[in-house]
């Protein structure tokens, strides 16, 4: 992978250097150098968009997707450099250009952000120690909920005490209902852990030995659910960032082509 990044960076530097050199020559000949940077930029944007097409054509030997990703990331960085060269500023004038720039930056930052989020989340997901398929999470949570309710019912029946049941209705039922602590998990806070510990501590003193046995089973399930919640949050964000990046990329492509069309029409 490192070798491919080196190769992609080398290619990017050669392209950037070549474009800058030719633009310089064009300036000397009083030609419009923005044409070159603009079309290079457009070509690069199309190339970056082709990565998604490659994913759909998985049956064809069009290089490995990992190679495409390397060139996609480095190409994205080259893109922003060429954008600055093309506009000769980081924030161009004109309403249309500003709109184009906003979309451009959104695509760029969502791409870079998504790249690092995915890399980071992959390790966080592994650290949970369990593996859950995203689409299976509702079924897994439902199963945990059923098991927890069965434990509470059995506890009530066996011990003739409703302490655990009341505590469950007041606190844990909310927790088991659906994925919880989405944002704290995303931001790396330990709210779920603290919440569970507090709710455990608040009731343990009122339980006898038999009830404690049942309650510990509940806590085990709650701990498992906490891990599944983590999977839900991290996998969810891993998928959803693309819902920002992809539509914006399509928008950028359309608006860029419109920009080229306008430039060419007015050039006549």
């Amino acid at each position: 992978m490192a070798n491919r990044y080196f190769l992609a960076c080398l290619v990017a530097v050669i392209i950037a250097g070549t474009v800058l050199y030719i633009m310089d020559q064009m300036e000397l000949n009083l030609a419009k150098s923005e044409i070159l940077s603009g079309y290079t930029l457009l070509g690069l944007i199309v190339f970056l968009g082709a990565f998604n097409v490659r994913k759909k054509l998985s049956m064809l030997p069009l290089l490995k997707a990992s190679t495409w990703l390397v060139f996609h990331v480095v190409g994205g960085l080259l893109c922003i450099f060429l954008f600055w060269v093309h506009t000769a500023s980081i924030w161009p004038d004109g309403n249309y250009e500003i709109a184009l720039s906003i979309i451009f930056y959104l695509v760029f930052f969502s791409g870079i952000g998504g790249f690092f989020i995915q890399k980071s989340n992959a390790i966080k997901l592994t650290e949970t120690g369990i593996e859950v398929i995203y689409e299976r999470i509702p079924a897994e949570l439902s199963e945990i909920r059923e098991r927890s309710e069965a434990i509470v019912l059995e506890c009530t029946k066996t011990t003739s005490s409703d302490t655990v049941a009341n505590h469950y209705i007041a606190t844990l039922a909310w927790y088991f209902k659906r994925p919880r602590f989405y944002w704290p998990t995303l931001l790396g806070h330990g709210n779920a852990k603290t919440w569970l510990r507090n709710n455990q501590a608040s009731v343990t003193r009122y339980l006898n030995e038999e009830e404690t046995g049942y309650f510990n089973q509940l806590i085990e399930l709650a701990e498992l659910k906490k891990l599944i919640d983590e999977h839900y949050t991290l996998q969810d964000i891993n998928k959803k960032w693309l819902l920002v990046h992809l539509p914006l990329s399509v928008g950028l492509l359309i608006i860029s082509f419109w920009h080229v069309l306008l430039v060419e029409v007015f050039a006549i």
Partner: protein
Amino acid sequence: MVEISVKQNTLTRPQRWDSPFDSDMTKADVKKLLAIEEIAAIKADRFPARISLEGILQNDTRIVAFKKGELVVREGDYGNSAFLILKGSLRIVLSPSLPGAILGRSKEHKRGFFDAVSQLWTSNWLPETRDPDRYGPTKTGAAKNAASTRIILQDIPAILDKHSTATINQGALFGELAALGRIPRTATVLADEDSELLEIRWQGLRELRAYDEGWRRMIDERYRQTALIAHLNEVPEFNHLNDEEIQLVADQCLFETYGSFDWHTSFKKLQNRSEANEPVIARQGDYPDGLLMVRAGFAREAVNHGTGKRTVTYLGAGDNFGMFELHNAWVNTNDSNLALGTTLTAVGYVDVIRVPASVLAEFVFPNIDAPVNMAEQSVGKSQSNDTLMQWAVDERFINGRQTMIMDLNKCVRCDDCVSACAAAHDGNPRFRRHGKTIDHWLVANACMHCADPVCMIGCPTGAIHRSLSGGTVIINDDTCIGCGTCANSCPYQNISLVQISDAKGNGLVDDQTHRPIMKATKCDLCSDQIGGPACVRACAHDALQRVDFKEFTS
């Protein structure tokens, strides 16, 4: 009152022998075969009524004629049938092997570029759709693939000059080891003169061996006579010996089998898969009495560590055990520490050839350099380095040749691999991104294309088979009857049964019982796709690999 009509697509449930080995086999052919000495000796009354001897001969065999020089089997091919010579004689090329170019190895069918692209619009958007017309009794057999795929060697005298060969004559059986042992053909065989052979596909051979004592004995004896000599010729330590010496060595070799041939049935039930349950082949601290050559299956090499045993490596077909210690004992006769440094246990099932120390002293040690102490090298690794190896052996993942392993620290759980697999296979992925994990590794539920593909045991039609080159285990959808034997046999739950439907998505059902028609599906390594496994190419993070654990853990 509203009348509800339910339209059902029906299909006659496929049966064993729906697709006979050769649909041109006649009753007269069967009668002729029953008169042949080797078959006449079979006690037909020992066979159950549903698998009669006549039925086997009619459906699981075919008579094939070969012209002088024609190749019958090629070394390295995965074949699913054995041959009985009815007429003529054949020549086995022992050593050195014939070059691939002479053998005319054919390439497997791959889609062309445009054919691959056309999947985008030709594939049905509904999963697992099939054309019902393709199923049912089919015309198969020798005539179908006759002259077009045969290769005739022109210059046989040159082959005889350059290669060591042996002749086998009328009445001899060969190819049974590859057919039953699920291993590649060990030698190339060609017709020495115009010959007629009875080709028996492995299902039929399995039944003959199971129900007839004479054939069982013959198959076992053939193993010693042909396979062992061929094997010894391949082993570097023995390949300098001449035919006479090889025969002497072969005569003194002992065959040993540890564990169960059907190891997968007990493996699925066992909770404790540690080495404690494995049959011991050689014990650490004991004195070695012979070289152990693994012929088939796997063995675990472990050292005593604390109160348990630490797995340091595993041995597969072609690996040896004890060479260093035996050589050391031969060189240093006065050394007090000549005992084995590791314990060898059978993982599931292992076929071992024991070559006595006296044979090695006479034929091998004077001609070789001091062997490397492989065990010492392995023991030298850290304990944590062995964790993955230990786990792979315990879970039998070592059986895999193309195990799908994912680095979870790289995997972003995007499921691009699953989508790519579905795109290449009738809209339904052939694996699940789910499985057993250790550390940051996940072995996904994808066919591992095992060295010992136990899924092939018991397939009544031979639908699940090895591809002719490369050893990829694939399922012939046309002959699969959806019985689920392979799925039940697979110890790793890597084969799924799916209900098939017509192009409109209506599920196909049996016309008699109205039960759904099922087909077994699994990863085929995208064997018909031009780019190879789509899952590997689709992973944008290089998290997914197809590996052989031996290489992966080394």
